[in-house]
């Protein structure tokens, strides 16, 4: 009897110890790992700075990008995520309430409910398009997307039947609406989602090596363009419907060929975003300031992309190396 009392006392003290540990560490942040290599690099750069220069402990969580991630950030489950591309995010217009500033210039504005905080631009500017290899463009005489239908049988695979195949935007949460775009533009192609960036690129590399024509969705900066000669098909310029009904709330009602998604993508001033409550805390003021000042350049990312994706080097090592070699590039981001 006595012993069971002692044991229960021990359990009780254990619970007390637990609850004393429950107070979260003040200098602790959680970040979502992006699901494309460029995003991973930008995020690792930010995390390295936070950890090594500002003394944070950052927990990196693997979480698929998309609306779910935005909601997790709004709920405070994740403190911040990196390199959101505005024209891919469906939630930005609903959840952000701020202006997007790039190098002092206003490049966009949001009037959502402010449940997510726009931390600032990353500095990387993204462009997306559909690409074909130059040899195919020259051989078949394809000048724009309008010529694709004429040669669709050349782009066909056993899986796509009579249609051509687009190696499409691989991740569902990115909201590329590839099939919708193809249908609206009357391109008789089938969009194949391969699940991951790596799978899509591997497919493209294999086709390139066989010198077959293929249509590939891709974005810049990407290492692929450094190794393989690709040309864009020049989709129509980016435009949105007025009013914009192509949203989840609008039940994805499109306005035909007049606007998105029947157009190409806009120039993306990528941004970091986080939980407003977390970054309003005084102990995170330094981190907030860092994100406002961060200005990571395309050229730097492109160099690291080659190291990580092609040479298969460890991401952390590559970022560390860049940080050690280029102190002049990041010194100005660090608040003093």
């Amino acid at each position, binding site marked *: 009897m006595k012993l069971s009392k002692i044991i229960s006392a021990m359990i009780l003290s254990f619970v007390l*110890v637990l609850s004393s540990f429950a107070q979260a560490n003040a200098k602790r942040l959680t970040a979502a790992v992006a699901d494309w290599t460029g995003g991973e690099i930008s995020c690792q750069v930010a995390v390295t700075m936070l950890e090594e220069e500002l003394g944070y402990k950052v927990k990196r969580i*693997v979480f698929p990008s998309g609306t*779910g991630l935005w909601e997790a950030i709004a709920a405070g489950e994740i403190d911040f995520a990196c390199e959101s591309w505005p024209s891919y995010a469906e939630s930005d217009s609903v959840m952000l309430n701020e202006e997007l500033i790039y190098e002092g210039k206003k490049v966009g504005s949001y009037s959502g409910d402010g449940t997510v905080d726009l931390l600032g631009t990353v500095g990387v500017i993204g462009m997306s398009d559909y690409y074909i290899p130059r040899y195919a463009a020259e051989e078949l005489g394809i000048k724009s997307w309008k010529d694709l239908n004429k040669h669709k049988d050349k782009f066909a695979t056993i899986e796509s039947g009579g249609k051509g195949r687009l190696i499409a935007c691989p991740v569902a949460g990115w909201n590329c609406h590839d099939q919708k775009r193809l249908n609206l533009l009357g391109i008789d192609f089938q969009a194949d989602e391969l*699940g991951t960036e790596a799978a899509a690129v591997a497919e493209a590399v294999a086709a390139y090596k066989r010198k077959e024509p293929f249509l590939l969705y891709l974005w810049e900066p990407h290492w692929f363009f450094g190794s393989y000669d690709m040309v864009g098909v020049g989709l129509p310029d980016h435009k949105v419907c007025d009013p914009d009904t192509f949203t989840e709330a609008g039940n994805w009602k499109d306005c035909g060929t007049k606007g998105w998604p029947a157009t190409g993508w806009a120039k993306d001033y990528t941004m970091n975003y986080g939980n407003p409550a977390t970054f309003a805390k005084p102990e995170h003021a330094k981190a907030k300031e860092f994100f406002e000042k961060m200005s990571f350049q395309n050229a730097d990312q492109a160099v690291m992309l080659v190291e990580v994706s092609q040479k298969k080097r460890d991401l952390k090592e590559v970022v560390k190396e860049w940080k050690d070699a280029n102190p002049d590039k990041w010194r100005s981001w660090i608040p003093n």
Partner: protein
Amino acid sequence: MSAESSINNKSRFNVYLTPSLIFFGIIIALILSFQNEEASVFPKFISDQFTFTAWVNEGEDYLRKHFRWFTKIIANYIKSGYYFIEDFLIDSPWILVVSILFLPCLVTGGLGLGLYSLFTMYFWGATGMWDESLQTVGLMGLSVTLCVFFGVILGTFCSQSNKFLNFMSPILDTMQVMPAFVYLFPAVFFFGIGGAPAILATMIYAMPPIIRLTNSGIRQVPAETIESATSFGSNKLQLLFKIKIPLSLPSIMMGVNQVIMMALALVVLACFIGAEGIGGQVWLAIRNLDVGWAMEGGLCILFMAIMFDRFSSAFSKTPEILPSNVQKFYLLPQNWEKYHIARILEKPLSFLHYVTNYVCITITNLVAYVFRAVFSLFNKQTANDIGEFISKRFYIIPSFIIFFIITFIDSSIYEIGSFPKEWKLSIRQPIANAVDALTVNPGFIAFTKGLRGFVYLKLLHPLDVFLTHIPWWYMMGVFTLIGYFTVGLRFAFTTALLLLFIGACGIWTHSMITLSSVLVSVALCFAIGVPLGIIASYNERFRNVQNVVLDAMQTLPYFCYLIPVLMFFGGGIVSAVLATVIYSIPPIIRLTTLGLTQVSVSYSEVSRSFGGTLLQTLGKVKFPLAVPSLVIGFNQTVILAFAMQIVTPLIGGKGLGLEVFNGLARSDTGRGLAAGIAIVLLAIIIDRITLAYTKKQRLALGLVTDNK
């Protein structure tokens, strides 16, 4: 006379009826499938009215608004517990962590398991996944603890009241059938992401076996024991805690073993909702198509699974008692005792064992003596109790002393820190190189290309076209009719309703794509599995090797099956099918072997003595008798294949699994849930039909008597 002939007529009519029905069914289906695709689309006005997705999302919004504070409190408790364990494991000196895992393995499982656990932990550290592995261990440890705690309580309640048991059994059934993904995603919105929802989802997934086994264990305590305890004047509670629960411990420990294995599978999968650990590493590796990395992660999980499996089953095993003239072996198999050299090799080990034993007992007694002396200053009775309590724990006390010494050294003399980086031994590059070398080999390319082309062009594509072109009402009718003939009217009605639900959710086409993937996978499983099963049923050595492989396959979480396929076939829908085949093949191999070996020897002997050849015996006697077993294998394979559909979108799978992923990415719970439920419903319908079919077959063969 006339009655008999009419029965004969009827059965003859039946004999022709079924094949001709099936034949006409297929002909009509083929004709219908040559119509345009439109006919296969579920009528839009129904799916527009039936906005299940919107209802779920509205309901979820309501719950979130009104109950989130409550779920958040629970989540916070679990989260703080998990963070505590995680911080402890990761921040502690690595030697301490090793000893915490090594010593229990050594004590329960002997030297072999101890050394194996050391190897496992070395592997975690060497591959650079030390932190991730410990996160998985922590996550699993906490969920297993909670599962066992609540499971044993619920199981005990079940054993005490039939009413409660009847109330619980349908709940337990549902918990076991539902794929974890269906509740994993909604859990995010109530319990946040990361450890807390993962642990709660694990509890739903892994608790049923321990509840069932506790219940049955307590109920199986012999009546005489209970009677004698009652006659000595035990009251009901004493009877329960002093007699029934201790006696049912082996059964409970078996439940713990199952809980551990199931928890591991789910904890790895929980990386999709942001739980850290090796699962996240494997997913990252798959995302980067980094085969070596994925392989390392998969091996970490495999070794961990085997370690925990052996550890927990060692707990429930009773030690065998050897004759006194036989030398006990600690590392080598005991049946090698007859070899002289083995005895010599074992000598130092047994000496080591005696020394350790002696040291442990001395230290424990010393500690007990000290405690007794100190406490006897206050109270003699307490002191004696404590002394006795301590002196009985020969292993725990020395272990704790070792832990304290390590902690002391780490904190005040020399900081040990995390696993030394210098010991890194990455097998990532060699694996990647080997795979690369293989994938550029022209012969291998021809093989994979041929296989891909065959599976796609000859199997998947025609079936896909057939199923997506066939009108929905025809498909529904076929399922309902099959349900009616195999199970009964009530089931046919339910089937029709369930299928209408799938159609009304607007995911009929996706369901058909999933169905065709599953059917192709199952067909391939049969084509590969049945021959393997036949070989195993004739050759015992082959069977033993195969059993080991299948055991290992079944301890691996299904997420890991994407890796080998990804290695050789890249992404795409065919790869998704092949991954499904690898994951769901074990039951069909096992049950073919079982079914064939179970056919009593006398039957085959009779057949042989009548001059039947080996093939004739197999085809005419053994196979028909093994049919029920085969159908159960088919049934389990189908269930596993459906479960696998959830993760195949990661490597290019389509259909309902992709819908679930789309739902998650858009935080559209309704969409994900509808697709998840559709997977469950299809699996349940096929499961019930096959089970009813086996029952009929068994009855017809006279293998069982009808109980009802």
